[in-house]
């Protein structure tokens, strides 16, 4: 079978110890924390109907928040908490990765544990509680010796549900910087690497299934009062945890961490930078799939050491500027501003990845549309699609204002699907990216912006404050500065969007270095 002979399966497998180990670690910690909070709460409220109702209502509400949103919410919350503890107690902590993921997942695990805990404790025959009192037990002895053991099977069923939920939802913790099996899925979706997507899905499903079966064995053992079943289940769980955690135990120092946002170009560039650091004898890993609001904070806090951002993005999101300056001037001003936060803007890579309004070349020619000003006349009969953030970005407001744009409909789409959508006529115009290889592939055209409503988006290399004086790092990265022109980056992105063995970020990064290394 050709499909199974695909070398990307092998590549996926090499990441497994790291991704699986981290996935299990964060799930386990979240479940432990969730239990530590929920079980005492269930015990405390078992005979108090009013607090019990409120508690269950809160837990149910948390459950209705989509997992991705819950995880994303914890990041700014922890950033705020970290700044407060820094101001008051002089200690700070990382709001990135493990901590927010664990807290959000712990919150997520609470409902089934609480509900089953309360149901289990309330479901005990009142005659037995009376008997416990009658033989001379104190309330605490009654709880420990009679009520908890009798409620245990029902509680275990709740823990089992919580464990499966947590393992499933943990795949969504990749964008806030927690490595998990979700890394396969996010990277696979962004680079159209379906092998990775499948691998990630299978791995997390298998993990959830295995844990579910083993906890089920413990549960039935408790129900039937069979020590053998309970023991086998417990040994199975312990073996599973040990097997997944031990391989990653030894690797404490990971050296330089190269960050990447959630799209193909970022995956390729982070792989390229990691390779360059390794070639210079520095140990480095890539941490990919970080949300664009998370990644800058992570750099500032030193959770990642370097990444590539785009001048216009930082100009609007970090400096909160709405005015637009020429490319070189904007970068210079940005450099000064970032220096105040001790962040080093090492330089530009040489290409720009700006937003651009993109439509099929043939259609544009037929309608006589060359610029966004030409488009404005036709916009009222047209639909537009953009990525998840575009329509809430200042560029969109600026475009609408400058050209009086008003479309019939606007839709949000996964970036990689937008180009196919506009090529097939499903939408008329998309807000694409100038460096995207799919523009050439689908025979699309990026419309000119004569009023310069969209700010420049030069790819710039940023270093964390703690790396400001790191000359070895800078020396390893300098060969990349100014070397990657837009045509090369477009071709690299086009390669990365393919669905074959040569389209993995690592392979494209090697190709890119062959092209630019000699320059």
């Amino acid at each position: 079978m050709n499909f199974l002979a695909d070398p990307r399966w092998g590549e996926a497998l090499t990441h497994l110890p790291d991704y699986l180990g981290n996935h299990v670690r964060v799930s386990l910690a979240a479940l432990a924390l969730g239990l530590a909070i929920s079980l005492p709460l269930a015990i405390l409220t078992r005979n108090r109907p009013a607090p019990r109702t409120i508690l269950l209502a809160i837990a149910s509400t948390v459950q209705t928040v989509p997992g991705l949103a819950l995880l994303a919410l914890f990041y700014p919350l922890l950033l705020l908490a970290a700044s407060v503890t820094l101001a008051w107690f002089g200690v700070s902590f990382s709001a990135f990765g493990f901590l927010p993921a664990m807290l959000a997942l712990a919150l997520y695990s609470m409902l089934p544990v609480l509900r089953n805990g309360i149901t289990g404790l309330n479901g005990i025959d009142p005659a037995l509680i009376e008997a416990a009192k009658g033989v001379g037990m104190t309330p605490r002895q009654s709880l420990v010796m009679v009520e908890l053991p009798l409620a245990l099977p029902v509680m275990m069923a709740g823990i089992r549900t919580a464990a499966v939920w947590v393992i499933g939802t943990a795949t969504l913790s990749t964008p806030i910087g927690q490595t998990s099996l979700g890394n396969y899925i996010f990277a696979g979706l962004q680079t159209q690497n379906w092998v990775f997507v499948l691998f990630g899905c299978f791995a997390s499903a298998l993990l959830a299934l295995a844990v579910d079966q083993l906890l089920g064995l413990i549960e039935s053992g408790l129900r039937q009062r069979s020590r053998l079943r309970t023991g086998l289940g417990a040994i199975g769980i312990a073996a599973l945890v040990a097997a997944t955690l031990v391989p990653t135990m030894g690797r404490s120092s990971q050296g330089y961490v190269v960050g990447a946002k959630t799209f193909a170009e970022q995956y390729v560039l982070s792989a390229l930078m990691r390779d360059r650091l390794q070639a210079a004898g520095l140990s480095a890993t890539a941490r990919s799939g970080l949300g664009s609001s998370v990644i800058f904070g992570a750099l500032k806090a030193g959770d990642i050491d370097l990444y590539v951002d785009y001048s216009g993005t930082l100009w609007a999101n970090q400096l909160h500027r709405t005015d637009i300056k020429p490319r070189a001037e904007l970068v210079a001003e940005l450099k000064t501003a970032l220096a105040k936060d001790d962040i080093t803007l090492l330089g530009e890579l040489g290409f720009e990845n700006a937003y651009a309004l993109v439509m099929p070349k043939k259609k544009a020619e037929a309608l006589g549309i060359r610029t966004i000003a030409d488009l404005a006349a036709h916009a009222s009969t047209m639909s537009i699609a953009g990525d998840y953030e575009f329509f809430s970005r200042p560029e969109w407001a600026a475009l609408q204002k400058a050209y009086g744009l008003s479309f019939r409909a606007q839709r949000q789409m996964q970036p990689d699907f937008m180009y196919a959508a506009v090529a097939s006529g499903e939408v008329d115009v998309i807000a694409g990216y100038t460096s995207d290889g799919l523009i050439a592939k689908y025979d699309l055209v990026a419309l000119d912006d004569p009023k310069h409503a969209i700010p420049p988006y030069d790819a710039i290399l940023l270093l964390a404050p703690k790396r400001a004086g790191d000359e070895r790092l800078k020396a390893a990265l300098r060969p990349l500065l100014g070397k990657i022109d837009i045509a090369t980056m477009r071709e690299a992105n086009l390669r990365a969007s393919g669905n074959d063995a040569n389209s993995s970020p690592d392979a494209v990064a090697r190709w890119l270095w062959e092209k630019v290394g000699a320059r």
Partner: protein
Amino acid sequence: MPSRPMIGYAHVTKSFGSLRAVNDVSLDVAEGEFVAIVGGSGSGKTTLLRLANRLIEADGGSITVDGEDVQNVDPVALRRRIGYVFQSGGLFPHLSVADNIGITPRLLGAPAADITARVDELLALVQLDRAEHRDRLPEALSGGQRQRVGVARALAAKPRIVLMDEPFGALDPLTRDALGDDYRALHRRLGLTTVMITHDMTEAILLADRIAVMRGGQLLAQGTPAELSNSTDSYVLELLRTPRRQVERLNALLPTGGAA
């Protein structure tokens, strides 16, 4: 009547909301006595029993156990020195027969070896085979065996008082008869003071020294079966009529010894 009762109720009242479950009840139980409290459901007999070991707290009046007002005694300590047999055993389903029996000594902090010895002694006392039943779970026992374990558990910490809440109610007649007789023998042999609740006057007459009749929270009459038959209360007489009628019918239906 001895000078100091083992259990003494004096003008005791207890209400649940607007319901007067126990209404001004005074009753003394002498040391070594076997008293049955008889009454229909809702008569307050179970409430009266539970007031003695403070499973329920009284609203008014006073209750003494072995001369001490129970209000001055720690309720947990009080319960540990009074045996209690529950309606359908009340055995803990997750604990073995041995662990159920040894629970009160364990709560009192007795050494494990002593508990083991005591459990074996009690199994013999309630006529259960040690090897066969010791490590079983309650679910593997018959109703009669469970109630024997219940009695053994109540006796484990060597109490001088045993309270029994309709202990034999759910058993088949043969088992019930055997268990009743066996308990009566234990009561005498160990010098226990026993208060038993039952709705069955026949059982009360056969087992108890003295019978207290309750209705609507009040104590209607108390005394030996003979004393009760002199009662003028119509309910008490009605209760006594049932066993009499049964005897007459049985005599008519069954050929008496040798006559056949």
